[in-house]
């Protein structure tokens, strides 16, 4: 193999959003004609980096070289002109336009469309044949499957002359079969000399398709590896990172009867993607059940399904003496009435109403409580007193119930939500990412409160992407991978390596690579051999 030059070279890219250091002196070199994976957890800075590369944001400092030339992108048009094409996680297509019309959008080539359309049709047919990207050019987008829509996005990028393709979580919305097809296209593109950057947090895909992989964590590039020199376990470790294990003071669990029984829970979202697959577990009084997994593997859906926010597609849930399934949903207010509290993963989107005062946010979900309502009157005095008390108990600073929720720091917002959900002494507590963006002192406090609830005989379900949090707080751990439970383990038997293995899921029932090889042997398509 001859020495290849770099398609992309990023040097010391730095970007801050207020107090958040999204990219901290990030360096990256992508060899021309390779498939380069970039992995990292949500919020690690991958998307920011790609947005800088594509001209959406401008770096505070650093240098961008594309195919040997230094550029300053202030607009995505500059990036496109330099030969970069981007396929976003959420497609940027006009639903009621045809494929052809979508592709020429922005490059119509004149006042009248006919000429541009004819030229585009010719070029697209050629591209389609060259890369095996077959799409009906006259079909409207809304009649195409998600996989085909993605193919249109790729065609669009290639049509605009992209030599480097960036794909952000391309398989997140695809079925396994569509994933296999996508990887086949990647191979064909690679053969034609196109450089591909694949952003994902799915380790299995990284291992099966990439040549090199770079790992981001907390805004920094922490490692570069040749894919053949690494393994899933190492990558998982690099991604999650080793931090000082916060010791949590806790005695043995006094486990009692199950308070929640989840049987064969399956959730399909509105786009038809299966987010949870056949998940079954029990949650018992007096224990903390940890749910581990790389984020985006069904944890959000699990929490929301258990809390009655999203509908269950199949299976049923028994909770505190009531049952719910597809036909008989229980709404969040009924579940709260039963004694189920929920600290959502995303405090800004769901946990509080940022425009409301703290005392009003501290009321969310409990605004119909009898003790603050007298007849029609919602007693403001009682609401404020309730918030004041909660702020004291959970050390929310500043302890001002009238302050707008948005004006509290992340940690204090989180304590406000935890206080709201915990102070009413629920029987079952669902907690998502309790310490995300929370400082060390508050983390300790939050962990103590969780343990205190467990010791009081309550059942706690803890969803977290922080492995050490899962290991130190939970009594038992289940691991979610791609919506299914890929491992169950007692906390005392768990270590990061084992959990990492489970999170990467060595036992994945549908192995894209295997399926791909099957497809290859059963058809006469030319699929390039993959580096492993």
């Amino acid at each position, binding site marked *: 193999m001859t020495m290849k030059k770099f398609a992309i070279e990023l040097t010391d890219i730095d970007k801050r959003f207020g107090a958040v250091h999204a990219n901290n002196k990030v360096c990256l070199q992508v060899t021309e004609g390779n498939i380069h994976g970039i992995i990292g957890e949500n919020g690690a800075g991958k998307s920011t980096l790609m947005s800088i590369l594509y001209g959406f944001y401008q770096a505070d400092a650093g240098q961008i070289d594309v195919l040997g030339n230094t550029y300053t992108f202030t607009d995505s048009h500059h990036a496109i002109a330099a030969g970069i094409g981007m396929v976003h996680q959420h497609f940027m297509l006009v639903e009621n336009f045809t494929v052809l019309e979508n592709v020429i959008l922005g490059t119509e080539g004149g006042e009248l469309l006919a000429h541009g359309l004819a030229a585009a049709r010719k070029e697209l047919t050629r591209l389609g044949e060259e890369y095996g990207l077959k799409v009906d050019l006259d079909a409207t987008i809304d009649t195409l499957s998600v996989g085909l829509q993605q193919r249109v996005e790729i065609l669009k990028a290639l049509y605009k002359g992209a030599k480097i393709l960036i794909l952000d979580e391309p398989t997140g919305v695809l079925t396994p079969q569509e994933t296999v097809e996508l990887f086949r296209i990647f191979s064909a593109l690679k053969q034609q000399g196109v450089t591909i950057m694949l952003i994902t947090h799915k380790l299995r895909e990284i291992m099966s398709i990439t040549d090199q992989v770079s790992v981001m964590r907390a805004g920094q590039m922490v490692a570069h590896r040749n894919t053949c020199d690494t393994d899933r376990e190492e990558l998982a470790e690099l991604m999650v990172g080793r931090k000082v294990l916060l010791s949590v003071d806790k005695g043995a669990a006094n486990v009692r009867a199950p308070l929640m029984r989840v049987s064969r829970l399956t959730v399909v979202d509105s786009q038809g993607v299966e987010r949870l697959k056949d998940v079954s577990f029990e949650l018992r009084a007096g224990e903390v059940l940890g749910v581990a997994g790389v984020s985006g593997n069904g944890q959000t859906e699990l929490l929301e399904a258990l809390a009655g926010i999203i509908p269950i597609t199949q299976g049923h849930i028994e909770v505190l003496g009531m049952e719910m399934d597809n036909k008989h949903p229980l709404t969040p207010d009924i579940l709260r009435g039963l004694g189920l509290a929920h600290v959502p993963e995303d405090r800004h989107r769901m946990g509080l*109403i940022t425009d*409301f005062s703290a005392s009003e946010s501290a009321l*969310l979900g409990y*605004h*119909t409580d009898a003790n603050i309502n007298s007849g029609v009157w919602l007693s403001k005095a009682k609401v404020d007193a309730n918030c004041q008390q909660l702020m004291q108990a959970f050390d929310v600073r500043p302890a001002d119930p009238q302050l707008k929720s948005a004006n509290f720091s992340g940690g204090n917002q989180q304590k406000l939500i935890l206080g709201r959900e915990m102070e009413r002494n629920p029987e079952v507590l669902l907690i998502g990412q309790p310490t995300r963006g929370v400082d060390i002192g508050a983390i300790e406090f939050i962990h103590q409160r969780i343990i205190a609830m467990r010791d009081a005989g309550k059942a706690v379900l803890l969803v977290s992407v922080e492995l050490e949090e899962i290991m130190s707080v939970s009594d038992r751990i289940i691991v979610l991978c791609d919506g299914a439970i890929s491992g169950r383990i007692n906390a005392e038997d768990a270590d990061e390596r084992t959990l990492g293995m489970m999170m990467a899921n060595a036992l994945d029932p549908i192995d894209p690579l295997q399926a791909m090889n099957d497809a290859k042997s059963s058809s006469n398509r030319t699929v390039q051999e993959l580096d492993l």
Partner: protein
Amino acid sequence: MNRENRITWINRLLLPVLNVLTAFAVTAVVFWLIDVNPLEAAEILLYGAFGYEEGIGYTIYYTTNFIFTGLAVAVAFHAGLFNIGGEGQAYIGGLGAGLAIFMLDPTLGAWLFIPASIIGALLFGALWALIPAYLQAYRGSHIVITTIMFNFLAASLMVYLMVHVLREMGQMTPQSELFPTNAWMPFVHDVAAGMGYSIEASPLNLSVLLALVCAVAVWFFLWQTRWGYAIRATGKNSTAAVYGGIKPKRVIIVAMCISGALAGLVSINELVGYQHRLVMDFHLGYGFGGIAVALMGRNHPVGIIVAALLFGTLYQGGAELAFEMSGVSRDIVVVMQGLVILFCGALEYMYRPWLIRTLAPVTQQTSAAGVTV
């Protein structure tokens, strides 16, 4: 005063005042262009609106209509809905009030007629908003589209009913027969005369009290009850509302019905209070004016009363202006209203960045802490 408070005051007070002044300044330029002395015009306008008792009566009478429709828009707005169907809801509310009156025995007392007509207006106004609300909540049809279509439907329906069903026997004009005098909302000048004060006659009637009661009730409902909480939570963040056990579909229905009912009350002021019969097009302009009033009043009852007074003043003073000055037609009111809407609505935040930079600059301290205490 800390920065947060300053920004609050800039938003609440300074911005609306500056916007209105800008609108007036541009109006002055318009006057100057059509060879009218702006100062003279302003004098006539103000005298027409506030210079004598009858003028004041008219001003408050118009203000009453704007309070009803402004509140209507605000309630829907707090639920995240843009109800631009105030016109139709007011119109159909009039039908409700009229039918309630005609169905009752004309010999009954006012104590029965007036509540009945109010209930009729509330119910019919709510009903006219209920259908778009249902379509939004359960069928996903956009409320802006459906409410504006319902304005046209209301207009057509009323033309049909007024011409074919409700027209007074033997009359050519499409209007109903007079309401029995028992059903009339008392005029303020009559009430005053009853108490021994003598003021000039004007259309001003006791509906203005009803409007003020509604303003207080809306404030109480939105900020002091669990239902108001549910409405505001849905409007601000419907995801969080669902998490909190609130059902956005129901909230849409409730908020729109209240909104429609409030708009329906315009007919109490116009028909039960002044015209004393069902007439065509009594509602024109108030429904849309209510949008501007709510925008200017920041969707708060106090702000709405102030903004409604401004619009009432423009209505009455503008009419006076058209009457007094030969070069000015009544359309000048529409121009002034349009400019107020333009600067208070569309260009609402024009001065904001500048005001915040000069009056509430970010200090090193506040930006570093992120929270101002």
